[in-house]
């Protein structure tokens, strides 16, 4: 009975992954149509202004992988998001739609405290002369719910829904074989426990399981949502350096708070001649920070690179200005998407694995 269950799970998994691929394929073609339509509209709109403006893939791509105030859905439709600013004149909260005029171009907005203008995706304060004042703008701290923050909240809701319901299933089906969503999640939880936490951390692994599982599923689900080209995906959360920085900062704090005397002794009293100690201190302290720093860069670069490649391949159609390019692009993009699905899992795995490894070196008890 047990075996048949496993087989059933594999069968389900393969079916679901095929379904997922097909889904991405569909979404992808939607996204392409969308971009195409958008471009056509822009071309039509700008047609009477100038015919010379060339399609610049760099701008488009950076726009897509970057953050923004407001969540662009299609054409000229976007979801306005709250803008929260700490300015020298006090807290200012307003809708991001106020930063655009009826033609969806950035326009100055006077909130009563300051006059704001969205310049190069940053909210700047306009001086009395109607020009951007860098001096006043430097005092603006932007805590807006941007597209990435909104996507982050959505992903957190998704994660909570999944795992709270799974936990419910565990409470309801005590001692029974997993079923449904539970049987999807359980092998991964066991994978994190038996293949990531236990071999790297040792017998103290149980204390760090919540952190490792949270990191793993947070990265993985955000990676996957980032691959979905329409709302509520499309945001590049794990490909944003701020997000990866926070994750690796958490790792840095956890690793060093749990470092035992052997860990600190290894840093401050390494087994070298005394005159080498100052150099070793520098090297070791750089090492303490460079490990999480590498985590930050790795995740950010991998996810961003994947998005850039997919967007570049789609941009080929607009660079060559021919629909004949579309099948080639679609074929390559499909390939990239399959690869990205793998990368999404792989990066979550590597991040968690290295976190476990760093924690392992910090809590390891060894005697020199």
């Amino acid at each position, binding site marked *: 009975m047990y075996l048949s269950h496993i087989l059933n799970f594999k069968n389900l998994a393969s079916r679901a992954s095929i379904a997922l691929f097909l889904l991405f394929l569909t979404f992808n073609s939607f996204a392409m149509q969308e971009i195409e339509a958008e471009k056509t509209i822009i071309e039509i709109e700008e047609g009477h202004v100038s015919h010379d403006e060339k399609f610049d893939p760099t701008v488009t791509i*950076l726009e897509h*992988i*970057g*953050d923004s105030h407001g969540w662009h859905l299609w054409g000229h439709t976007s979801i306005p998001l709250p803008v*929260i600013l700490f300015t020298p004149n006090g807290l200012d909260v307003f809708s991001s739609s106020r930063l655009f005029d009826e033609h969806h171009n950035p326009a100055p907005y006077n909130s009563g405290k300051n006059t704001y203008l969205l310049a*190069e*995706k940053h909210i700047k304060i306009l001086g009395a002369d109607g020009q951007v004042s860098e001096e006043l703008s430097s005092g603006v*701290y*932007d*805590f*807006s*719910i*941007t597209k*990435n*923050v909104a996507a*982050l*909240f959505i992903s*957190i809701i998704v*994660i*909570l829904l999944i*795992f*709270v319901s*799974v*936990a419910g299933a*565990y*409470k309801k089906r*005590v*001692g029974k074989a997993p079923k449904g969503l539970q049987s999807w*999640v*359980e092998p991964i*939880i*066991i994978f994190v*426990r038996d293949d990531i936490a236990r071999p790297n951390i040792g017998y103290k692994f*149980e204390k760090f*399981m*919540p*952190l490792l*599982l*949270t990191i793993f599923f*947070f990265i993985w689900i955000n990676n996957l949502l980032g691959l979905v080209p329409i709302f509520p995906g499309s945001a590049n959360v794990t490909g*944003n*350096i*701020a*997000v990866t*920085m*926070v*994750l690796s*900062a*958490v790792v840095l704090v956890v690793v060093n708070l749990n470092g035992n005397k052997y860990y600190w002794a290894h840093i401050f009293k390494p087994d070298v001649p005394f005159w080498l100690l100052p150099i070793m201190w520098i090297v070791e302290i750089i090492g303490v920070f460079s490990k999480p720093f590498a985590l930050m860069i790795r995740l*950010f670069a991998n996810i*961003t690179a994947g998005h850039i490649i997919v967007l570049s391949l789609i941009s080929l159609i607009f660079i060559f200005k021919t629909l004949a390019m579309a099948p080639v692009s679609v074929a390559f993009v499909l390939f990239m998407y399959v690869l990205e699905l793998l990368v999404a899992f792989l990066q979550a795995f590597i991040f968690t694995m290295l976190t476990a490894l760093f924690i392992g070196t910090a809590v390891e008890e060894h005697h020199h």
Partner: protein
Amino acid sequence: MELVTPSIGLVFWTLVSFLILLMLLKKLAWKPVLAAIHDRERSIEDALNKAELARAEMSRLSTENEALLKEARVERDQILKEAKELKDQIVAEAKNAAQTEGAKLIEKAKIEINNQKIAALDEVKNQVASLSLEIAEKVLRKQFDDKQKQDALVSDLLKDVKLN
């Protein structure tokens, strides 16, 4: 450069939401889930151990049974053998008894036959004697019917006597 510059807002919100997520998941999901998985694994392990024990017990019982069976078989053979011996003994005894009884009967019969034979012979002897006497009487009567013959006889007898 824009790409690798973390914006303070996103850093703040990510930190806040990640920590909240971590706490919520730890409390609502990971603790019960990991405990449940652990318990289930332990119960499966227990069940497997118990199954192993039960199997050992079974094999022990089966060897015991086999031994018992063997013993029973030996005992049965023993009983059968004893029964056979008893039977043989009884049959032999019966045979012996029958033989002696028969011999006795035969002896008795022989004696009886002998007695009967003797009685019969006696009777035959008596018959023969009386018959002989009768015949002799008859012959004598015949002989002495004729006077001449009596004289002849007497002369004959006398002749013999003279010769002597």
